């Protein structure tokens, strides 16, 4: 059944520049998908700032406590590097990968 749920997941494609100005829109995008399975596509990310990491982690935690699937699709080198720099690489393991 899980495969079926995941196939219906909405894809949220992260912008390439996740800076100060991207945090509020990102929160709004996640907010609009609340309650539905989400697959985060990070394959275009060039730059990940701490504010957007906050939104991403908060969303992950919210989806988890809602019991709704939350997964990570493609990741770019820029995204992975951003996670590393911010001490958050564990997300690559703790968020289910698709």
């Amino acid at each position: 059944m899980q495969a079926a749920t995941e196939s219906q997941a909405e894809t949220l494609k992260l912008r390439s520049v996740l800076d100060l100005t991207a945090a509020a829109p990102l929160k709004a995008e996640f907010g609009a998908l609340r309650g539905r399975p989400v697959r985060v596509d990070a394959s275009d990310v060039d730059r990940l700032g701490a504010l957007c990491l906050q939104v991403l982690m908060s969303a992950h935690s919210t989806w988890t406590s809602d019991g709704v699937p939350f997964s990570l699709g493609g990741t770019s080198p820029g995204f992975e590097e951003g996670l590393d720099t911010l001490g958050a690489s564990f997300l690559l393991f703790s968020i289910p990968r698709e």
Partner: protein
Amino acid sequence: MDPLASIKITFFQECEEQLAELETGLLTMKDGETDPETVNAVFRAVHSIKGGAGAFSLTELVRFAHVFETVLDEMRAGRLAPDGRILDVMLRAADVLADLVRAARDGGTVDEDRCQALIAELGALTGVQEAAVDDGFLDLDFAPITVSVDVGEEPEPAAAAGLEMAEGAPAAEKLVVAFRPRAALYAKANEPAVLLRELASLGRAEITLDASSLPQLDELEPEAAYLHWVATVETDDEAAIREVFDFVEGDCELSIARVPDDCEPVAARQPPVDEAETAGELDIKALIARATGGATQTAAAAQAAPAAQVISLRDHPARAPDMSARKEDGHAVAAASPTIRVDLERVDRLIDLVGELVINQAMLAQRVLESGLARSSGIAVGLDDLELLTREIQDSVMAIRAQPVKSVFQRMPRLVREVAHATGKQVRLVVEGEGTEVDKTVIERLTDPITHMIRNAIDHGLEPPERRIEVGKPAEGVVRLSALHRSGRIVIEVADDGGGINRTRVRQIAVDKGLISPDANLSDEETDNLIFMPGFSTAETISDISGRGVGMDVVRRSIQALGGRISIASRPGQGSTFTLSLPLTLAVLDGMVVSVGGQTFVLPITTVMETLQPKPTEVRRLEGSVPLLLVRDRYVPILDVGHRLGYRAGPIEPTEGVVLLVEGEDGRSAALLVESILGQRQVVIKSLEANYQRVPGIAAATILGDGRVALILDVDAVISGPTSEPALAETRLLAAG
């Protein structure tokens, strides 16, 4: 063409434009057109010339432009009205500025006297004579020259050991950096990812994220700061870490602590709860290990990347590494204990509160005393304990602000190098007692006077090498900078082994400048102290080193402003020693409480030399002057404090009151007449300026045990008033006659 040379040509072209703009602007203003934009344009013209001149190390030009700019800034801020007289001075200054620009461009010289005279005139307009150009503005790249630096006698072997240890141990010192950004950091477009990347470029770094304050999505403010980090960096360069966070100081909480090699870093925080939940059956520890391992890898990568990026700059002449300074650091690293970084405001608030506590405790004690309770009663005994405790808390709180003078002293080797280079002298700087602690506010204000005294010691004190050899001294002169605690004050000495003060010349200059009368009879000590008089400057042409329009009188005034005093001892042929003595703190003061015109006043006890009750035979009256008091064969003017400050219509009879013999910071003494002495006590200083406004003759205020406000006398201001001028020489003549 060399790109810099071509920029220099541009600079001089631009200077011509700015000079034209400056002149036009000043002339427009003279015609009465003083709209802000004209004033701004005039300011910018000078500012711009100064900026470019700084980049090309045109020191004369920078110095003059700086003084000029300071005056224009006053005008721009509306603190100086541009009247005809002032504009005339400015137009003449503009001419000199033009001469300086052309001299810098075409070679040649500028009339030094004219230049100097204008600097003085400009300085007089603002009343600000400290037109010293900031350190670093004339940041010349000096070639390394022969200068050795001794760091006291004792630390030498230990420092060497510290250095070896640092080199011998492959696992370098680790520093733990805890970093908690605030929202303001993000709002100013600073980015933790960038800061952490730069941090990781300093050494292998393990970065741990703390997301425990992160709320669920609907409660999340997208631009608020929830994430915190703890980074363990393999470096011992705390200064480099602070530099990374320099721009965000005030917009984050930052603490840096040292971890011994064999300790696990305290950075290993619990993973955030939500992460632990989602990790499911995965081994959390392994996860964290992998995550932090990953972080370490990027750290290494980040380290390689910046190196590549700045490589083109590496042919820029680098400063010779200062080995002594590094040894010193190594030593400090070995000795330092973990530190935390606290907002100064919080400490100040705490100090303020403790001040209130001290006052409150004193008031309580007074009430208990008044209530007639026996000294042996439980309450009285308890109060005594409370007093001890209060005093201890106060001392401990003050100790938080105490810092070693090292932060000031360690800037001096470079200064010595530069001044030695500029004067062609060989100098060895010996530093002692740099661990001596003093209140932060005092430290901050020590740099300028010490810098000036050291410049002075090298420039005027030490002889040129040839001269030293002639008189049988080593070619290398020694300047000794030391600090120590003495009776509740910090004493800082700057000593040189130069030729000592040339008293004949000093006297001649003082006479020439009209500072003393030609027949004044002065002791050696008094002659030496002439150099502290306003308007005295021994250099015939203001040299670049000690000059800059700042004399020793400015040093003296800045020391006085801190409640300190400065003195000089000089022996011909053997050198001079300047001694600064300063209070350890600016927040409390040991005071003598006196009664004047029905009011209570406090005098800093350090200013009071003795107290006495004048006998009629000791008082001498003189036509047109204040009465004089005979004290050990010298006449000292008697100044009635109540009368002078306007608390009493007329003076009281000297024999009816008590006099306090005080010595002003310029060494001048006076007898302050008050009605009675009420006692001595430590008082907490409350600034009047902050709460009210500056009052002449009054330095600050305090609250006494009975809750009354008492004013703290500014002794210097009181004794330097207009009628206290039976000058030194005159007083002596009277004493002789």
